[in-house]
């Protein structure tokens, strides 16, 4: 091994670390800029409502249908396993707890990031490519407050609402399988759920999780779009990166949040 390749490798490693730190700095500055520009969302709520339509309303279908199927599958699988211990009756509790604590927030965040996050990135990236953002700046309109901030807040509002819908539909799916298909008693199904699901520990923590996921996926989406290279290739790369990075961040964040929330219970 010659000196040249070693020093080249070191150089690349150094560049990787420095570039990572630079990106992190840019992201942090961008985050602060969005927060500073958020006043427009209160002055012109119409902007946010329009984005809630694109992020929230149009994502309803991809939340309702997979949510139902996740509930159905969970009901079937859990009943099959629990039946071996003679406790098939608690299938409702297992479905509800796993949905509210983990699967609801994580799966709906993943679905929303691939349905809405990628669309937001592509839209902003294309605006940048066609120089609409520069045109706005020429007209003394801040693109961060006019384009970015409404999308950011719309995402934060939409994700927890969609997560709640996902949970309810999932529990309904579990109900269909357990009560209608497998013959668990309706009263037992609901009382087991009510006995085990706690408002503070489970429901509130689930909502807190989904708020964090909402912040993460919308921030990644607008960041990738705003900092995409203004070419067709750059926009497509940024869109892919949004979905990939969102998935990483959601799953990593989920572990950290769970470790904080459900420790010692």
């Amino acid at each position, binding site marked *: 091994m010659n000196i040249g390749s070693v020093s080249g490798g070191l150089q690349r490693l150094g560049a990787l670390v420095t570039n990572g730190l630079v990106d992190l700095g840019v992201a942090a500055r961008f985050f602060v800029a969005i927060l500073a520009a958020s006043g427009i969302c209160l002055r012109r709520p119409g902007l946010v409502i329009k984005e809630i339509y694109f992020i929230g309303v149009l994502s309803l279908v991809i939340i309702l249908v997979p949510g139902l199927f996740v509930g159905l599958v969970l009901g079937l699988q859990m009943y099959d396993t629990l039946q071996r211990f003679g406790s098939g009756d608690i299938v409702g509790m297992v479905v509800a707890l796993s949905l509210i604590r983990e699967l609801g927030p994580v799966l709906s965040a993943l679905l929303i990031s691939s349905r809405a996050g990628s669309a937001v990135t592509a839209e902003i990236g294309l605006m940048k490519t066609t120089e609409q953002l520069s045109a706005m700046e020429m007209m003394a309109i801040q693109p961060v407050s006019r384009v970015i901030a409404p999308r950011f807040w719309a995402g934060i509002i939409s994700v927890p*609402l969609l997560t709640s819908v996902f949970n309810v539909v999932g529990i309904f799916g579990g109900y269909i399988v357990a009560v209608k298909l497998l013959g668990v008693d309706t009263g037992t199904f609901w009382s087991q759920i009510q006995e085990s699901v706690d408002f503070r520990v489970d429901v509130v923590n689930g909502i807190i999780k989904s708020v964090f996921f909402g912040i993460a996926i919308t921030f990644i989406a607008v960041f990738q779009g705003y900092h995409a290279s203004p070419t067709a290739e750059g926009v497509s790369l940024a869109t892919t990166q949004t979905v990939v990075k969102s998935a990483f961040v959601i799953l990593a964040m989920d572990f950290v949040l769970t470790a904080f929330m459900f420790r010692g219970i």
Partner: protein
Amino acid sequence: MNRQLLDLWVGIFVTIGIVATVFLSLRVANLTTLQTGSVYTVKAEFDNIGGLKVRAPVKSAGVTIGRVSAISYDAEQHKAVVSAALDARYQFSADSSMSILTSGLLGEQYIGLLAGSDTEMLQEGDLIWLTSSAIVLENLIGQVLFNRAGAEPTKTPADN
């Protein structure tokens, strides 16, 4: 898409989301039965509380009438002090007793409250002195094994 239709759709969406959250809170987490505020707290000292946890139910005649609000340790008497928040709708006489029971063989532990016959009623902050500790399964197994071991020497000569 015109503005009013957009607002309508967003309104429907937000309503669905809020209804789902309310459903989760009321129907799934059963928030309606919590009724905080109208409770009074009594204390009880136990030699051993086993696996009792905060928020475990306090039941009388099988009906949940309160929850364990705090568990602490009395360093002077070396006993566990359990605070229980009881529903103010139910009054119990001052000589009521508490025991730590287990639902099912390996289920969760809860406090069983057996009403006494005193005319004086339990007040906020009262101490319940008639208590019986949790049955610790490991101790029971230990006792069984100990009894078996004690019986063994009489058997072994016969075996040989």
